[in-house]
């Protein structure tokens, strides 16, 4: 229970960064922290005390494995998060090229 709460606090730090900061790179960093905490939360839900990693052994029959399903879901999520980070970074680079700043309050001119 305590460990879920720590994970939630990590999520809230990322949320604070996304909502409060005005620099685009800080917002991307906040998004990254939110992704980390969500991945960790999924894997924490599938952990079994004194469990073993979900790979069969050659000599013995392993019974107390941890849950492989959250790990499979998170494995795809990690790679997607990298692609999404690259997409947001490329948009930020274009914004810097066009307006000369990373500050989101200075971006007011709306022309194509």
């Amino acid at each position: 229970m305590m460990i879920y709460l720590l994970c939630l606090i990590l999520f809230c730090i990322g949320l604070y960064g996304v909502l409060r900061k005005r620099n685009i790179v800080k917002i991307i960093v906040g998004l990254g922290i939110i992704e980390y905490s969500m991945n960790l939360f999924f894997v924490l839900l599938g952990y079994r005390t004194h469990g073993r990693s979900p790979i069969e052994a050659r000599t013995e029959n392993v019974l107390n494995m941890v849950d492989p399903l959250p790990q499979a879901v998170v494995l795809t999520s990690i790679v997607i998060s990298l692609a999404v980070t690259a997409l947001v970074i490329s948009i930020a680079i274009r914004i810097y090229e066009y307006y000369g700043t990373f500050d989101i309050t200075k971006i007011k001119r709306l022309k194509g």
Partner: protein
Amino acid sequence: MRHNPDAGMSIIVKTVTRLTVGLILLFGIYIVLHGHISPGGGFAGGVIIALSFVHLMLAFGKDVASRKLSKNIASNLEAVGALMFLLIAVAGFFGGSFFVNILEKGTPFKLFSAGTMLLNNVAISLKVGVGLFAIFLALVILEGSKKKK
């Protein structure tokens, strides 16, 4: 390996890169092929393959790396990976429905076991690795074009 001596980093980095980049690529291929019998798989191996090309580009400049694998070839290879994955999925209709493992299972703990899983791993690694390398190439080419102005 002919290259412009001014591009890229210093001579120490270039020499070490020339020695290690092949080993990194080989390790990525090992991780991909042994994905069903040990930790690893298509995603991790694909990112390691992309990192070997990124390593080459950071050390030697973008010309050497894009001569090895240009942007058009990278885009085409990524499409080939996606189509290969879809084709394996559609081939499952021979066994009944979508995504059915039609090849024989083999004995566990052997390299050629688990049916289509090895081919799936290769397709995913092609897609992930070349896709991420294409992203990095696009970012670097944009930076270079801006400095020329």
